[in-house]
């Protein structure tokens, strides 16, 4: 359950946090420009993006079929597929495997799904050490925090904060230099790579026809996580399957350009099961954990289903005016910004995340940049509708807002009432306006007046002026 009061406090704190505001402004501004320039280089972007959307929607409509195909191919390659209905089941599988093999440590590359199922803290409880190897994720882990952006998890931190963290936790010489920070992380993480028997990764795409797991990254830590440890466990949300290798070419293009503005990332790993006898590197054992954790519930609705098309590029976060102001942590959820606003309440429930669908001006910039064309604003509206309907069925939640809306509808359905109401509002407005601007103390005018002057209510309405003009 995400607490509304907590979100409000977060928002207030985020807006007052000058470091955060600077980071958001510079990083997101740059990401938006790089994405725009990169997309502009592709003349048939719209066509590719529509293709990617259509493939996703098709796949989601036959998800059982493609997942079965993926399982069959992976099994044939000597891998093992585990179906986890809940996050807990996925965690339990990893815990059991580690215990069975008497393994106390694993290395992990970046995976939002692992954040969603709280893998690190659950492993910690089972006395299994989990080391994040993506630099941003490692920073966030050292600080005991959670990621605040899909791609840049430590976006909220300043260079100085990171340097201090490294000095405190890793004994780095306090110079604050970026090179010092990265080489320290590299040195420390190398030791972990060499000593951890299990590597856990996420999955960007699972190709059904070939049983290929695709990992997209820039740091090489995912590549190391799947080549040094003896066991590779890949965590994959069931929506990440795509049918064919030829689709992959399109998805990589739209994902990478939308995410970082690059033409290609430094590393793209295509993995087919465990190491074969003739191969030099790779794990001896490969496990693919397919996680549902609320996803099949979303599939049930033909319109809302498109939420699951998301390929986690982060472009909607970068462009979102709300996210640009409050950052990720304010949302109190794993998924933040526009995609988080539609995904979070659907993965859990509208009652558990009551603010998410309303935390938007519905400006639609997210949809405009979405590489798989998810209709985020229209989904937000649908979720708002569902939220109000759910509240309506609970008699205890008969709110003032609902009464006002009922009254509003009554007035707006009757031209006569509308005129009477408008006349009286005008009188009242003038009256309270006259007593030293008392109007500003009436909610929601208070909220308006907090930052903005209140518009003048015209002395005569348009219809009055129009009638006198006619006469």
């Amino acid at each position, binding site marked *: 359950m995400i607490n509304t009061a907590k979100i409000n406090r977060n928002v207030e704190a985020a807006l007052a946090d000058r470091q955060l505001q600077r980071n958001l402004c510079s990083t997101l501004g740059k990401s938006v420009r790089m994405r725009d320039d990169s997309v502009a280089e592709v003349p048939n972007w719209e066509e590719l993006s529509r293709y990617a959307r259509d493939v996703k929607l098709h796949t989601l409509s036959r998800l059982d079929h493609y997942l079965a195909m993926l399982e069959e191919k992976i099994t044939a390659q000597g891998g093992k597929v585990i179906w986890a209905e809940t996050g807990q089941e996925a965690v339990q599988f990893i815990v059991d495997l580690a215990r069975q093999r008497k393994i106390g440590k694993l290395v992990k590359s970046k995976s939002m799904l692992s954040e969603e199922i709280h893998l690190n803290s659950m492993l910690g409880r089972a006395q299994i050490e989990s080391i994040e190897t993506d630099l941003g994720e490692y920073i966030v882990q050292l600080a005991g925090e959670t990621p605040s952006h899909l791609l840049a998890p430590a976006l909220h931190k300043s260079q100085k904060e990171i340097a201090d963290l490294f000095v405190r936790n890793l004994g780095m010489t306090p110079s604050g230099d970026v090179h010092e920070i990265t080489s320290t992380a590299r040195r420390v993480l190398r030791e972990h790579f060499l000593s951890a028997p299990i590597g856990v990764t996420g999955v960007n795409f699972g190709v059904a026809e070939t049983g290929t797991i695709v990992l997209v990254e820039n740091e090489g830590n995912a590549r190391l996580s799947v080549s040094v440890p003896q066991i590779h466990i890949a965590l994959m949300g069931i929506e990440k399957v795509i049918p064919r290798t030829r689709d992959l070419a399109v998805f990589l293009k739209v994902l990478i350009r939308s995410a970082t503005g690059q033409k290609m990332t430094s590393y793209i790993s295509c993995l087919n099961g465990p190491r074969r006898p003739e191969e030099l590197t790779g794990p001896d054992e490969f496990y693919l954990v397919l996680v549902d954790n609320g996803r099949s519930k979303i599939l049930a609705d033909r319109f809302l289903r498109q939420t699951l098309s998301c390929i986690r590029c982060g472009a909607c976060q970068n462009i979102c005016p709300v996210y640009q102001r409050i950052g990720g942590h304010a949302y109190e959820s794993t998924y933040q910004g526009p995609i988080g606003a539609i995904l979070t309440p659907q993965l859990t429930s509208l009652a558990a995340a009551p603010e998410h669908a309303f935390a938007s001006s*519905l*400006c639609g910039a997210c949809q405009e940049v979405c590489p798989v064309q998810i209709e985020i604003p229209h989904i937000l509206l649908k979720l708002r509708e569902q939220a109000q309907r759910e509240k309506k069925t609970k008699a205890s939640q008969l709110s003032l807002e609902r009464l006002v809306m009922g009254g*509003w509808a009554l007035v707006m*359905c009757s031209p006569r009432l509308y005129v009477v109401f408008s006349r009286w509002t005008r009188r009242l407005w003038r009256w309270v306006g006259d007593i030293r601007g008392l109007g500003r103390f009436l909610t929601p005018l208070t*909220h*308006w007046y907090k930052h903005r002057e209140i518009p003048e209510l015209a002395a005569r309405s*348009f219809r009055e002026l129009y009638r006198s003009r006619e006469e």
Partner: protein
Amino acid sequence: MKVSLFVTCLIDQFFPEVGLSTVKVLEKCGVEVSFDPRQTCCGQPAFNSGYVDESREVVEHFLAVFDDSEHIVVPSGSCATMIKTFIPGLFPEGSSKRQRAEEVGQRTLELSDFLVSVLGIQTTGARFPQAVTYHDSCHLVRELNIRSQPRQLIHGVEGVDFREMENCDRCCGFGGFFSVKSPDVSAAIGDEKVQWIRESGADYVISTDVSCLMHIDGLMRRNQVPVQTMHLAELLAQFDD
């Protein structure tokens, strides 16, 4: 040509001069304007907040008023979006109400779109020797894909010094009830918009939506920013009768 004016509730109550300018401009373009005083609201406030049943009641009234209109002209991108994009979806697919709503939607046009796309107007004969910039309203630009029409009309105003602002199509932060439910975020977004408006060097910011302008104006007055807001219809009506 005859058009029915849907003036919108916000213009009716707060900005009647925008409605009068709309009539003035349409008449100058040789259009016969009718205003049906039974009209109230398009139902958007309730719809955007998730109160779909309440919204539908108001929409049914709206459709009853405008059922017979040949062209419905709306001086608001947001209300035009409600009518064209969202209203049909309030009724079950295949129903007669849905069909009627779709027909009304097809006959509805935002003011600048009507002037440019239907009438082919290049200038209304307005003269306004001032520096102006233009704010694209989110609904107009991203739901209705109308970018060039308002700009063409602004360029048609004699003496106008048009200065495109940076990020002209980014949200101003208004967002309907969002502006009072999340006032801090709404205003923070708006402050950035105001910054871009200032940087353009314009003395006037023009838009097709009084809702955005009301928010931007409130912020600018609070912070003593010496820029005026003006609806596109008011700019186009800057000619002698």
